[in-house]
């Protein structure tokens, strides 16, 4: 049971990052490889505001979300928007460039340095016990925040004007400007929301694993991305389902004593899902027209 709690923690972090991947992919069919690094930067923001400015939970949340959103929008504006009509692969390479830049910029000695840093604890810790399973207040906060945000996002996509515009862009990129919707704004919003969620992911991550290093975004980002694909990329419910599934499998693997094979699980699951149902567990299969 204790392992299930752990899996829920990890799954929440994956889910928040996976949502960013899936939103951006759903709208412009582009794998934003720099997304994992936005998460990493958010982790560093939390580290800084907590260690230097002695912020509490709400302060850290606010700064992480704002910082990540700003970063996401700037990246989109500077690096991706000029390539809107270029081949998709150029965009992908640019994303790899942005990702390399963020990692190594943060690793500069004058910025943060390449050594991992320990994040001081900044939320009160108390332990609850329900039916023999121990919860800490941190775990409750994480689960609560993640669930609230996912429900909010679901409501946003379903019921607001902007959310409807997003779904419209996702289903027909070319027709949307004809309906008087500003595509650039929609894309920027998607990046802002996705990055903001990655920011929350960064905050929650450092609450559970109080350590930040410049390259932590690579593995976590990739796993989250896999979660998005497994669940059906472009589908926000799929991303959440995929994230919890992968987290559960990883934790189970570690609990079974095969911790060195841990990384292979997610990737193996990915290949399996792609072979059996390429559009993902909850994805819609799009028939190709000739």
């Amino acid at each position: 049971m204790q392992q299930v709690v752990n899996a829920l923690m990890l799954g929440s972090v994956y889910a928040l990052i996976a949502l960013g991947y899936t939103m951006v992919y759903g709208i412009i069919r582009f794998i934003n490889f720099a997304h994992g690094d936005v998460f990493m930067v958010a982790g560093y923001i939390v580290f800084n505001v907590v260690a230097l400015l002695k912020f509490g939970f709400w302060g850290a949340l606010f700064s992480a979300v704002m910082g990540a959103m700003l970063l996401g929008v700037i990246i989109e504006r500077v690096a991706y928007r000029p390539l809107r009509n270029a081949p998709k692969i150029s965009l992908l390479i640019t994303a790899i460039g942005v990702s390399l830049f963020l990692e190594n910029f943060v690793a500069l000695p004058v910025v943060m340095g390449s050594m991992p840093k320990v994040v001081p604890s900044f939320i009160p810790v108390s332990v609850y016990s329900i039916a023999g399973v121990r919860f800490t207040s941190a775990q409750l906060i994480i689960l609560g925040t993640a669930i609230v945000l996912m429900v909010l996002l679901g409501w946003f996509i379903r019921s607001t004007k902007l959310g409807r515009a997003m779904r419209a862009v996702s289903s027909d990129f070319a027709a949307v400007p004809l309906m008087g919707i500003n595509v650039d704004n929609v894309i920027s919003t998607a990046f802002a929301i996705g990055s903001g969620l990655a920011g929350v992911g960064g905050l929650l991550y450092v609450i559970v694993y109080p350590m930040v290093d410049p390259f932590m975004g690579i593995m976590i980002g990739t796993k989250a991305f896999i979660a998005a694909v497994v669940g059906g990329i472009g589908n926000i419910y799929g991303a959440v389902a995929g994230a919890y599934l992968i987290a559960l499998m990883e934790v189970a693997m570690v609990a079974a004593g095969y911790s060195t094979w841990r990384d292979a699980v997610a990737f193996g699951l990915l290949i399996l899902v792609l072979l059996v149902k390429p559009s993902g567990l909850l994805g819609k299969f799009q028939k190709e027209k000739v």
Partner: protein
Amino acid sequence: MERVGIKKLRFLVLLLIVFLVPQILYGTGLISPYILSILMEICFFCISAVSLNLVFGIAGQFSLGQAAFMGVGAYVFGYIINQFPNWWMFFPALITGALASAFLGYLVGLPTLRLKGDYLGIATLALNQIFVVVIQNLNVVGGARGFILNIGSTFRQWWLFFGIAVLSVWIMRNVVYSNWGRTMVAVREDDIAAESVGIDTTRTKIWAFVIGAFFAGIAGGLSAVYSGFLHPSSFSFIQSFNYMVMVIMGGLGSLSGSLVGAFVYVFLLEGFRLAKDWAIYFPLLASITQNEYRIVFFSLVLIIIMLYAPKGIMGGKEFSMLKGKELEKK
């Protein structure tokens, strides 16, 4: 007929110059072993970039698993050469490594029946990471600690690297301009149309992967000779991105582009180290040319290249030497 003869001659002379100049400069001590080793690195990067270009640029199969193919080649080569460290076994070991890699390429080629585009890229990326995890757990080849090759610098010869690179690129160029190559281009452009004119698209895709993986394996073997030490992390999907960067930076679908891309890639990364030696004379420059800044600058240059030349440096064009006959007539 005569014109082609002269052209070939000119090409051979050019090759000879490119081969001899570093050799002589090195022999007379004008360039350091370091620069020569950079040139060797360019050789196997060229093989790898061109082979990836064959898979992705010519046959249109998005592959992010290049590093795994190289890794198979490198590890198989390293394992064999460690048992028999002599010249007789060098080429058999290299070829065996390449064949093992080609077999992996065949296995990767199979799912292309179902997957295409981004999904294929993701699947190959996953395969690459699984390869890394498998190697990390294989104690025969050192596992996560890495694998030391006890061959010293016997095979670390410029002529060897250069010769293999020229031979491989030449073979791949011939593949591109053969019937196979044209079939691959047809599949890339539109596989349904290709199928309707009688091309076996599945077989073509699998062959593209097999050939590409074979040469990636050769490049991997050379990289093993080059560094003398293999570590699973040097074959992770991050490395696959690097080869993709070379191909795209040079220009997708252009063999010369991949050569240029490999050269520019190494030049940007290693040139920075050289620049550092010069920059110590300028106070302000010296402070920002520390090693930590290397990749920061590299990524900035990469982003700028992609923003201003989204189709790559060569933009799909070829050097005249690498063009096929039918293109020459135009």
